[in-house]
């Protein structure tokens, strides 16, 4: 697993993907948080709500992009045959790629700690920011990223065309993130709307953002990630 993980990480950095993803994320969130209309200064609250509001949407796009090649390219180039005929279990291949994706997500989030520090210093008095909620939000974003990565890997395992993989991943992430919230609002589900929304990521993301680590949310994040990784492994195994 370690070899696959390191190979993927090297791939991200040698192909500039990692740098581009980090820079694009910083530019988008930076502009939204500090420059564009309704920025943090205008709103005047000492929190990072703008970042945490937009990040899940930006992640859909970026994480789909970083995972789209993971299996589709290997299938197309035939290198998957090399990988599978090496003494690696299918889970080791899948987890190696998953952890590489997750580490990249963490590296994308890392520079935004500067935002956190800035708000911390700008608060009146200094340090007037809900630290618990902020850390909770970061953890929520990481878990959300973890589900996106597993969805991206699964989408990539479905096809040998990375563009198709990207679009599938984009769609599945969008559905998992927000669709269940919208479906829950449809009048048919009026009695069970809470449970429908509970399937989606957003309900748990919002819950963890309050700064409370609820085990139910953790179980949701872990099991959803594992579910998509298991699907990926099943797809890999079903080679004709």
């Amino acid at each position, binding site marked *: 697993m370690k070899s696959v993980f390191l190979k993927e990480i090297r791939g991200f950095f040698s192909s500039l993907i990692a740098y581009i993803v980090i820079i694009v994320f910083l530019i988008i969130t930076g502009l939204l948080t500090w420059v564009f209309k309704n920025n943090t200064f205008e709103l005047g609250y000492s929190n990072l709500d703008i970042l945490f509001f937009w990040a899940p949407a930006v992640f859909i796009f970026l994480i789909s992009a970083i995972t789209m090649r993971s299996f589709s390219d290997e299938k197309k*180039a035939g290198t998957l045959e090399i990988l599978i005929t090496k003494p690696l279990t299918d889970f080791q291949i899948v987890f190696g790629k998953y952890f590489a994706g997750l580490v990249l997500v963490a590296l994308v989030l890392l520079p935004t700690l500067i935002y956190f520090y800035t708000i911390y210093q700008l608060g009146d008095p200094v340090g007037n920011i809900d630290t618990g909620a902020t850390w909770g939000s970061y953890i929520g974003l990481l878990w959300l990223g973890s589900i996106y990565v597993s969805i991206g890997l699964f989408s990539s395992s479905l096809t040998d065309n990375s563009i198709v993989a990207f679009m599938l991943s984009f769609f599945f992430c969008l559905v998992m993130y927000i669709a269940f919230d919208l479906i829950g609002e449809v009048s048919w589900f009026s009695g069970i709307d809470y449970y429908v929304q509970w399937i989606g990521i957003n309900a748990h993301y919002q819950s963890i953002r309050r700064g409370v680590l609820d085990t139910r949310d953790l179980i949701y994040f872990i099991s959803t990630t594992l579910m998509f990784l298991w699907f990926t492994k099943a797809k890999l195994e079903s080679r004709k």
Partner: protein
Amino acid sequence: MTVKVINLKKVFGEQVAVNSINFEIGQGEIVGFLGPNGAGKSTTMKMLTGFLPPTSGESWVAGYNVEQNPLEVKRNIGYLPEHNPLYLDVYVKEYLLFCAGIFKLNKKEERVKDIIEKVGLTAEYKKKIGQLSKGYRQRVGLAQALLHDPKVLVLDEPTSGLDPNQIVEIRNVIKEFGKDKTVILSTHIMQEVLALCDKVIIINKGVIVANDKVQNLQDSGKTKTIIIVQLNKEIELKLLQEVPGVLRAKRIGTNKYEVECRTDLREQLFFAIAPTGAAIINMQLEQQSLEDIFKALTNPNLIK
């Protein structure tokens, strides 16, 4: 037996790619897997290496069952797939270190350096794989397969698409490593089998049509011998036809005759021609080649 295959079968949808084949390969043998395109060579190799699960049947590699103990099989096998897939945007050394890492080899750096030397990549190992010519890429593919010193080497068309010099070089590398290892290589080039292999398995439409030592197979094809005789002047055909043992004789060019017989009759022909005063300029024994045997065995009209 390092490789043992029992009733191995693979069906893709309606198409039977490999139809219940059986064979055994002993330690240290180099076996040529011969067959026309689409005969089931690659499919068999993919099943041996654990990439494709068989529809039915079993196979053992280095004493391990491929389906029950895939990791041990994969640890003991070096595999070069068809078309030699590689990560093109990775450096040669980086790729080999990655492979060494998977096998958890001790002294990775040393081993990689060693293999780079052995397959003749010393001048190229600092490049990205995508920058290499086809011959060098093939060496990278071989290096990857040989890196962990496997007991069994499975090479799917290792020389296809290479120029004649590269083919010879790659063959030498295979021969060198094949000395103490079991090698299965697929090809549709007959000379390759003659140059490299001890044994040959000919497969056609998913069925093994021949499995024998290369020499035996060549001998078995010798049902008739053809002798080409070149003289300096005309002689009567009857003269040749009357030599005992000659089946047929015909003129095939100016003063050139083709004599078909059961055994090598060159001596008898000489003494038959000598009294006429015609000088024999050339007398040549045409052996039935492996190619003819291959054609005969894989000809659809002859099977069924």
